[in-house]
């Protein structure tokens, strides 16, 4: 085997190693993004829990129920007319 072959193989190995390192860094970054999104979901769940647990949310629930009912009734009327 010539010294040229060795050089070629060493260069190829180095290039492969660099690729692996770059891929590892990319996957690591992806992992950080997923971790951040997971934290985001937990944060938003907390916000929703806090909001839905508030007195103002509970007190105004009849208004939301009335609105939902009104929409449903209107749709049914529209369907009948349509």
């Amino acid at each position, binding site marked *: 085997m010539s010294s040229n072959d060795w050089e070629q193989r060493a260069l190829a190995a180095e290039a492969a190693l660099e690729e692996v390192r770059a891929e590892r860094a990319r996957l690591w970054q992806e992992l950080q993004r997923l971790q*951040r999104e997971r934290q985001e979901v937990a944060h938003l769940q907390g916000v929703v829990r806090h909001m839905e647990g508030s007195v103002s949310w509970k*007190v105004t629930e009849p208004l939301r129920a009335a609105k939902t009912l009104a929409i449903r009734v209107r749709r049914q009327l529209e369907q009948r007319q349509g």
Partner: protein
Amino acid sequence: MAAAVTVAIPAYNGARYLDEVLAAVRAQRVGADVELLVIDSGSTDGTLEIAAAHGARVHSIPKAEFSHGGTRNLAMQLAEGEHVAFLTQDATPAHDGWLAAMLEGFAAAEDVALVFGPQEPRPDASHMIKCEMERHFATWGGGTELDVQRLGRTAQEVAEYRRFPGRWTFFSDVNGCVAKAAWREIPYRPVAYAEDQLLGREMIEAGYAKVFHPRAAVIHSHDYPPAQFLRRYFDEFRSLREVLDHIEVAHPVYTPLTIRGLVGHDKRWLQRQGVQGRDLVRPLAVSARHHGIRQLGAIVGSRADRVPRPLRRALSLEGRDSFTPYDVPESPLLASTTQPDSRPVRLDAGWDYDFITRAYPSREIATVPHAGDAGGPWRVAWVVPPWRIGSGGHTTIFRLIRQLELRGHSNVIHVFDPFGHNSLPGSELREQIREQFVPGVEAEVLLGVEDFDSADLAMATEWTTAFPVRDLPNCREKGYLVQDIETEFFATSAQRIWAEETYRMGYRCVAYTPWMADILRDDYGLESHWFECGTDLDVFPFAGEEGREGEIIAVYARRETPRRAVDLAMAGLAVLAQRRPAIRPVLFGSRQKSVLPFAAEDLGVVAPRRLSQLYRQASVGLVFSLTTHSLVAHEMMASGLPVVELEGDNVGSALGASGDLVALAEKRPDDIADHVERLLDDREAAAAMARRARAFVEERTWERAGDQLEGALREFLANPRRRG
């Protein structure tokens, strides 16, 4: 041979279910002798005959002698077994493994005093009762797992117990077993009702364990007509007030919401049973009535002390007109004060310095062994404290991160916030970095270090962060970005000790300025590299003498940081104002108000572009640094503004000790006034100094800082840490 376990049933005219109950007890499959004990208080309906037919040992007492606590104490005394399982005369063991499950509960731990099991409703019970019982017993082990309750000793556990004691104290002798050894120490109390709740509370507060065993189930439920329900709940909640001091909330908003919530539970329970649509209307109307009555009974019952005696009797299902609070002795485990004149101390497990408590005993910096491969791209995790917009230290960190990103390295920012300053999620913090600090930063921002996974390099950036970074797992190397001598930020204090401790952890450091690196190397023996910050030349363009107004002096007066020696600057200006009353100092950098003996203006905290405008207008800039020199000096120098700083190694090593780049005043008001006055008077010399200063700053770019940091980190990775 003495029985190992006794099943005890207080009875009074209980013929309706007693035969079924006793037959179920006799059918128990348990590897121990079972004694069946019935305490009768004057039954006339055949109860005694039924008991005798099942071979029960019957002990009769006069009806007048019956009390819930007293009669059960009598049963405990008479019982041969070391464990006494109590049933009521209408609670039927659900299967033949009921008693074995009770005894199994005591094997869960050595300190178990009480074991109890779920109660399943009889088939004819109303949907409200079925739903309530299902929900109630799901409190422990989800209703399906064995659950041991014990009063914890930590602040958080005690606080939780105080918030919802029922989770720990609930015990029911409708279906509960008592260890005689524990009962000898804490017997039933002579209370009219709720004797089991009191026993549960006392046992838990004495430090015993209590066990819920899901297989120790009985069939038991009561249904009454509405008026009787009202009276029943009146009795129950009067007793809870007497023994647990519970007062049911009565509130024009919360009470209807509670009823609505209970009806909602019933609705979901009915839906799970397949009841849908219009079929729900009627049962939910019944639910609403039931829970309305329940809340009324609970509110009035828990305020029975305010109800007239005749009305009390009329409202009570058991016809009792008394109200006798039971004074439960204070548990030593819960005692919050030993001094009668002490103030309460709030219990909170989320203590600010918990990270310090957990950091000791001191440990070595944790890294994984590696061969010294410094090939990139690297994965770099930065742990930073929370920030305020405008924070200079954070701007530097984010600029360095950006520099690493531009060189192809991946970064993540963990915000370590033991003091709870931050309320924003990671995504918003990331946007803040990009919009308010350094555009283009790509690193994700994570809250805390709990989600830390791995990194080639983990970097601490401030003294508090050095503690968690030390213990992060799966890191090849760890470093400490030191921008200032943080011990100097504190007076003699715990914080000073802890900050200094971080310099003794053996971190490999990258310090801002050679001066800082020398201190870390010489005073603490640390491996120390250094970098110098760049300046935003776009934001701070050079301006010559034209447009500068003679007497305007730009003064960095950040009172929040004592190392800026603001009062020394003011003293110097006061001396100067006596000599030159026309001077007009313009202060900036602080949210605090100033009271001064000379005319001045205060911009407060303003954006860099506004400062740039001031630097181009003023004739002299005053910025003092008692530790690492401020970047504000660089920005003034970039803008062509002649600067006066304080002399000292910290400034001299970075900006030259000769005074060619900035004027260096002694730390005396008169000398400060002299230096400012000299610059105001000799504009030619001042302009020459400003030009030299601009050239100096131009050499110090952020790209250069990025190279210096990357070089230091490469050194870390190429030369693995020597392990002790």
